[in-house]
């Protein structure tokens, strides 16, 4: 199956945005093995799904998708933003917001400093205002490489501010989720972020505004049990792991192996929890269309 949209006539005539690899910021450097996302590196990259050897350069122009099987390599937050938003149309909010280590948890500050310098980010989400196909939108993208995308006070606060600002300006919100769950080191404060963000979403929704979530691999734990599942429209990337409990926890609880495809995007759509599965090359045009359909209601 050929996933490259530029090789087919159908897509060539549509207004799909082409990734500009030369502009892509790559803040991820030297990530420890246990936190390493599937980022293409070197001249050739092997697809962990089908084993195909791909030119890294061609991966980058194909939204980090394997051109054989469509496997989604990780996209960093800023790569994602570059692919989704109109050129030059993204203004980041609260970039320097950083956790205050609310529990004074042993060893947390050291680990944080380490992760900050490796990722070039202050915490696991980038929020801001941008445009997609000319439509203004509030956008948040989570970074799976930052403490495995775990949600703590900073993610909670940045998202809450984003929704509050969107409510004030009457704008839609799009959130790309990627999370291993709660930030353990922030304990009960992490848990409470679920309520805090959900509250801000409830107010945004009450104001009649649109919220779209795009679930990417992996979306689990407290993020699934709060803002990921509250979208008016819930999209997912193909094959993403999406669930409340992680598969290992479930296997331990029930003492048996889980079936193939369990908790993948397709499984969730089958069970009624995802509206539509969208591959990366069609994400921008799909989001742009959704935004346009909600921009002017006739009545």
């Amino acid at each position, binding site marked *: 199956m050929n996933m490259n949209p530029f090789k087919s006539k159908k897509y060539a005539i549509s207004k799909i945005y082409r990734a500009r690899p030369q502009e892509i910021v790559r803040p991820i450097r030297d990530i420890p093995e246990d936190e390493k996302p599937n980022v293409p590196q070197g001249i050739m990259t092997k697809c962990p799904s089908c084993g195909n050897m791909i030119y890294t350069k061609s991966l980058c122009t194909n939204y980090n998708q394997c051109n054989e099987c469509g496997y989604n390599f990780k996209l960093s937050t800023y790569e994602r933003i570059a692919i989704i938003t109109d050129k030059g149309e993204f203004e980041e909010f609260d970039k320097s917001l950083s956790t205050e280590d*609310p*529990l004074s*948890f*042993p060893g947390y500050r050291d680990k944080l400093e380490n992760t900050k310098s490796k990722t070039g980010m202050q915490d696991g989400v980038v929020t801001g205002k941008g445009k997609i196909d000319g439509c203004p939108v509030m956008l948040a993208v989570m970074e799976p490489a930052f403490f495995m995308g775990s949600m703590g006070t900073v993610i909670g606060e940045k998202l*809450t501010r984003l929704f509050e600002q969107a409510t004030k300006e009457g704008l839609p919100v799009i959130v790309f989720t990627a999370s291993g769950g*709660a930030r*353990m*080191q922030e*304990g*009960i*404060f*992490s*848990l*409470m*972020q*679920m*309520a*805090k963000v*959900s*509250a*801000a*979403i*409830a*107010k945004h*929704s*009450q104001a009649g505004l649109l919220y779209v979530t795009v679930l990417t691999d992996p979306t689990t*734990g*407290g993020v*699934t*049990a*709060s*803002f*990921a*599942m*509250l979208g008016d429209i819930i999209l997912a990337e193909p094959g993403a792991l999406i*669930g*409340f*409990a992680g598969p290992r*926890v*479930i296997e331990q*609880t*029930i003492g048996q192996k*889980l079936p193939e495809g*369990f*908790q993948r995007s397709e499984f969730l759509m089958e*069970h*009624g*929890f995802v509206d539509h599965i969208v591959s990366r090359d069609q994400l921008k045009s799909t989001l742009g269309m959704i935004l346009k359909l909600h921009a002017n209601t006739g009545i």
Partner: protein
Amino acid sequence: MEITPWEKVKLARMSLRPTGLDYIDRIFDNFLELHGDRYYGDDHAIVGGIASFGDLPVTVIAQQKGRNTKENIMRNFSMPHPEGYRKALRLMKQAEKFHRPIICLIDTPGAFCGIGAEERGQGEAIATNLSEMMLLKTPIISVVISEGGSGGALALGVADRVYMLEHAIYAILSPEGFASILYKDSSKAERAAKEMKLTAQDLQEYGIIDGIIEEPQGGAHNDHDQAASNIKAMLEKELKELINLPIETLLEQRYQKFRGI
């Protein structure tokens, strides 16, 4: 005498400790249990219904542990499935319709992790409760009576007042789970219990909860009646205040309460 966080964990899980229904019996009159979520089934890990609190009609929802192994199996050790949370939300919306205050008694190790729970959208069920509870136009009081574990507890914990019993715990997940994730060793739960800051006293200090309800000497299991009557005294005081607030004020205060964390 100082009780360590780990001792509190063990106290909170003690089988002799009063359960949700033990408190409902002692605090409310005319409790009528209402079953089912209207979509899938009736989850025995959550009980709910209507009752009177003095002269005041109320809706009561409790996560229910068993008093013995057989009951615990029936109650799924108080680990709700999505239909439990959906039942709770149904009863809360009903309470809103009839202008009844809502009282939630929280006691769960966490939402259940299993195939059915995932197929039926555990994450969606909890998420929906979090956002819907924030907008419910009626007073809500939640009390963590023993164990408040993870999003599975929070799904009944978005309230105008959140209290904990003196020896109850409330945390992001169990100390065992925490230890196995962070220290890769579930036997380090005792250390986790200390570092997680999960006691009522810690949470009050952080401003996460509004108050602590005193337990009888040695713990609630020593005197169920006394423990229930202490909860009742708190409810009398708080309900009197909450039912007199204009709805807009109530909702704004509820929003700000969580906004500030």
